[in-house]
């Protein structure tokens, strides 16, 4: 049970309504209405805690109109913990049931309770989706206009579904890999770890890599690249083949109980004491994973372990910079950043212009902003062209593009416009939701091909080209 009135009042009171967060809030910018601003939302939450407002449908809708992008937390000098406020408010909305409808409840149960709590089932569903896409059935159905038979909201979503890769993380990554060990033969996208001139410190750093859910299904190659760049920097990499969902999806959508259960499972699987660092490569997951310490702070059995976990959790870029990663000496090879349909036919990345789109939960949630750029700048033959508003939400925002399609589409268009205006051939981003949102947005817009990729893919390719 998590509710606004039980929340430490100082969290609610922290907002001194100065309004400095308003210009950074995408929903306030869209409507210029206070209730759609951080200050307004916090005022509504406080009114509920104070008993001045009932948890109403309108309040519930407001809490889900918020992108959860956390831009307001970067802007707020007073240090308001908006992330916690929003999670608590959404949990309260779910408990009150003010948004409940049979369809919504079914979808929530299927996704939050069934699919995203069972990693094997999720992979099985992913496999089916892959069959659908890879077998040509999808293309056939689209050509035949069969999609028009779907209800309107599903029809809109269908082309947004991620393109599932042929192999998932556990098929690309062995549970333990060390700089010296031979690579697993997984074909073209596998990078040859054996011949890295690895720095190999006296006692190698031991790290655990978290593979994520969507990342695992749609971007297992990013997980592979993450392992590769860690190996290239002398780390012994542990990647448990079956990992539970981190629970961010649940926490962000008001399912506090599942979030707690999943955090505990994660801690049962990976003991922070065994590792120097626990690595996440997806902005959204990392932001939530970092908060385990707080999430479980009053659970006597897990509090200490969760605190240790939070202390060791690192975003991949952050960690690479922290351990002073080795700058590659060669421009990335002729391997295209094979990260999905759009990129399939791109040319070399030598002398490539790259722009960087910041995942909200990486820059605002985790305050990791300089490090991915440091990595991109270290790539030989890559020129970093900053795009305008790199920290403005792209509209993906978890499942926001499903729940609030109009606003999400406008944000997507705005983002794609800035990416194109930068003139870059490649846009790098470090979150699967953003990745898909950019891919879809770029595909729908006219202009030269722009490839979407993850910074570690580019880094891994540059290391591979040294061979």
């Amino acid at each position, binding site marked *: 049970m998590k509710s606004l009135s039980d929340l430490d009042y100082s969290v609610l009171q922290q907002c*001194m*309504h100065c*309004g*400095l967060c308003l210009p950074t809030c995408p929903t306030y910018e869209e409507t210029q*209405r206070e*209730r759609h601003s951080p200050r307004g939302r916090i005022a509504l939450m406080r009114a509920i805690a104070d008993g001045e407002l009932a948890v109403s449908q309108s309040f519930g809708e407001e809490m889900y109109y918020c992108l959860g992008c956390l831009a307001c937390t970067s802007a707020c*000098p*007073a*240090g308001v913990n908006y992330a916690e406020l929003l999670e608590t408010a959404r949990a309260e909305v779910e408990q009150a049931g003010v948004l409940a409808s049979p369809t919504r409840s079914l979808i929530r149960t299927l996704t939050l309770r069934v699919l995203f709590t069972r990693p094997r089932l999720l992979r099985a569903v992913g496999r089916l989706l892959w069959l659908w896409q890879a077998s040509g059935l999808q293309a056939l159905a689209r050509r035949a206009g069969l999609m028009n038979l779907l209800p309107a909201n599903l029809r809109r979503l269908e082309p947004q579904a991620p393109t599932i890769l042929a192999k998932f993380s556990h098929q690309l990554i062995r549970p333990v890999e060390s700089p010296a060990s031979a690579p697993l033969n997984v074909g073209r996208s596998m990078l040859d770890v054996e011949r890295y001139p690895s720095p190999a410190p006296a006692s190698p750093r031991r790290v655990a890599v978290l593979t994520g859910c969507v990342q695992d299904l749609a971007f297992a190659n990013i997980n592979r690249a993450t392992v590769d760049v860690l190996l290239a920097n002398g780390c012994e990499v542990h990647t448990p083949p079956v990992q539970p969902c981190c629970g961010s999806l649940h926490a962000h959508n008001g399912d506090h109980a599942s979030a707690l259960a999943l955090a505990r499972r994660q801690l049962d699987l990976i003991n922070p004491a065994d590792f120097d660092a626990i690595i996440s490569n997806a902005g959204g997951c990392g932001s939530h994973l970092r908060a385990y310490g707080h999430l479980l702070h009053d659970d006597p059995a897990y509090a200490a372990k969760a605190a240790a976990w939070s202390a060791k959790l690192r975003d991949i870029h952050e960690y690479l910079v922290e351990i002073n990663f080795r700058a590659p000496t060669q421009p990335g090879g002729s391997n295209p950043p094979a990260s999905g349909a759009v990129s399939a036919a791109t040319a070399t990345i030598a002398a490539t212009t790259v722009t960087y789109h910041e995942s909200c939960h990486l820059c605002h949630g985790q305050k990791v902003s300089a490090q991915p750029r440091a990595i991109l700048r270290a790539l030989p033959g890559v020129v970093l062209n900053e795009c305008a508003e790199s920290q403005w939400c792209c509209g993906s925002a978890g499942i926001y593009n499903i729940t609030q399609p109009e606003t999400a589409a406008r944000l997507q268009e705005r983002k794609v416009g800035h990416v194109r205006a930068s003139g870059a051939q490649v846009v790098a981003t470090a979150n699967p939701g953003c990745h898909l949102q950019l891919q879809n947005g770029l595909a729908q817009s006219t202009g030269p091909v722009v490839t979407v990729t993850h910074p570690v893919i580019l880094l891994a390719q540059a290391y591979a080209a040294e061979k």
Partner: protein
Amino acid sequence: MSDLIAQLTQRLGTHRVLTAREDILPYGFDGTATLKQLPACVAFPRDAADVSFALKLAGVSATPVVTRGSGTGLSGGSVPLAGSLVLCLVQMNRILEVDTANLTLRAEAGVITQKIYEAADAAGLFYPPDPGSMKISTIGGNVAENSGGLRGLKYGVTRDYVMGLEVVLADGSICWLGSKCVKDVAGYNLRDLFIGSEGTLGVVTQVLLKLLPRPAARQTLLAAFPSMEAAAETVSAIIAARIIPCTLEFIDQTTLRCVEDFAKVGLPRDAAAILLIETDGHPAAVADEAAQTESLCHHHGATSVRRAANATEATQLATARRSAFSALARLRPTTILEDVTVPRSELAGMIRAIGLIAQKHALTIATFGHFGDGNLHPTILTDERDHAEMHRVELAVAEIIAATLERGGTITGEHGVGLAKKPFLRAQLGDASFELLRLVKRALDPDGRLNPGKIFD
């Protein structure tokens, strides 16, 4: 009232007239601590004609009207009255003209101050007033409060840049006051009457602003001092040396630590006080002034003086300073901010007095402010739920005000009287001046329709 809402809705559309509790609750406060009140309705006019229409309707139903910009005010000026109609001008946000021949800019009242600055900058021009809230405050709010900013010492305040105003009066008539002429003495200067009138005399719907050529060069310095007195003496020395920097900002230790926690720009956490100094103008003059200022700082005991390496670093430092007030909220739940201003020669004494008052009432008071203007923001860090402490806060505020008035100062330098400073206005003005203010109010707004209960009852 319901008739007013119906007619407004018919004219403006449902999305511009809000009455649902969830919609209007967030308009119940501004940036001032502890004040809140729910209005009956919030409407978003599109132009002066809409405002006029709303004011006429309000006249019929005897509804109080509270004009609002972005609600960042710090004296409770835009806090609604029970049952009132709030006219929120943020959707009147067009810049209408940048006249590079006459160096003027005309804009609707809801334009964000930062956008005015940017539009001028894009034309190679300069709009100097830069309140700490400029990223979100409206130009109409700036005019209504006659806001200052970080550049006040050299460039003055909002009033110094207002050449003309479009104002809607309480009876709904729309008038233009002022012109593009540099000189204009046709009739009383009523334009100036509306500047700083806090929404009590009329609704400003358009502003005509004076612009300056953009200074060719700028240099920002950050000096750290081992004591508040040393910083205060340095300021006197700079001014005595006939240097007028555009910015001369002061931040004490409590404030600078909060700012550094937020902004992480490398402020010296151990300093008792820092001065943020900026000079601008001709490159040679800037270089000369910066060098002189730097040596004056060292001469008066500065432990370090940092020069911003480039424009980005200078902007970072100014942005950090602008966050000072909000950053202080990190320490305690309630931040009560004062805006006292004294003649500059009284600054050191005033700072000492604030220190003693804090001690006497066992309160934490952090101080920062526009030192060059003699404008201090002693900020009491407290908790509104602690009634005993809040009582001590009240006593301390009264004593700070008394200490200010003793020194020939004013209860508010830039935030306005609103609700927060209302109890102290008569003491500062004296009976005759106070009554003169009310006489003006009665003449322009005989029914007390506009923002009643603000400035005075």
